């Protein structure tokens, strides 16, 4: 497995973003439990939606960059699990046409669409008018 500079940069940035988004989700959850977000619930909701959108987009970028390795891993798994004789049509299908790579690319597009929808939800949560609690 070879990893060029661009793939390595994408991997490190996406993994750092995944870790940061998960940490932000945990911090938001703790703050919500402690009751310190009482006056700013829509900010917490908007931040949570933004981190979810980030998670979806980082996953999309990982799929987009490492579709080749995903296909190789999947084929290795198939070759390990399925005996040689029964797996021949699957070899012929997936080795020549890169079906797993194309599935990963289409899934990446749908993850990008989901991420865009979550960004729209973030905007809606940010501008929503919630009643101020007085209790």
């Amino acid at each position, binding site marked *: 497995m070879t990893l060029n500079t661009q793939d390595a940069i994408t991997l490190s940035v996406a993994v750092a973003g995944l870790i940061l988004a998960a940490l932000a989700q945990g911090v938001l959850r703790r703050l919500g439990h402690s009751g310190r977000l009482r006056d700013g619930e829509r900010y917490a909701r908007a931040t949570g939606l933004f981190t979810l959108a980030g998670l979806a987009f980082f996953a999309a970028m990982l799929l987009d960059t490492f579709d080749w390795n995903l296909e190789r891993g999947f084929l290795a798994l198939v070759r390990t699990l399925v005996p040689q004789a029964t797996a021949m049509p699957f070899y012929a*299908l997936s080795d020549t046409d890169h079906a797993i790579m*194309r599935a990963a690319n289409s899934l990446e597009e749908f993850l990008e669409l989901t991420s865009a929808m979550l960004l729209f939800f973030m905007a809606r949560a940010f501008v929503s008018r919630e009643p101020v609690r007085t209790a």
Partner: protein
Amino acid sequence: MRFPLSRAVLALAVMALAMVVAFVGTAICRALLEARGVEGFRHYPEIFARLFVLVLVAAWLVHGWKTRGGLFATDAPRWLRLSLWALLAGFLTSALDPWSPISDEMNVVRYSTSGFLLLASATLFAAQLAAYRWSTAPWHWVSRWFWGSRPPMKSCNCTKARARPWPARSPRS
């Protein structure tokens, strides 16, 4: 942080099932076409990717119907349900569109993606117009973007001061 591990495992299982169904369906297509004497058909991976996506969308629909959530939630606000139906329309149009390939980055799903991003930016821009006083001078927008808030502007089309909706005033102060 409590992560819903069972849901993640379930999602991975659904993805594996979708891959298996797409593989079997593509193999059946290949066998049928080769039995009819069609050789050199180039679109098997396209069939695979579309079957994969359709199985995932069908699983999402079944889950939403069973739990009465997501698309079929009756207590959700209208904009949320409309957005989810737009998401489904983006999935289905890209999976059923016979002209643009789903797996070659020339896909109609990108129109839906840019539409949602445009909606998000329009929402935030409208909120900015509602929260601040409006000005035609572009350097005001640049300075607001760069420094955040600035002293009140001299040229402004607002004649009376409005209550500032952001940041929200705390009830305790």
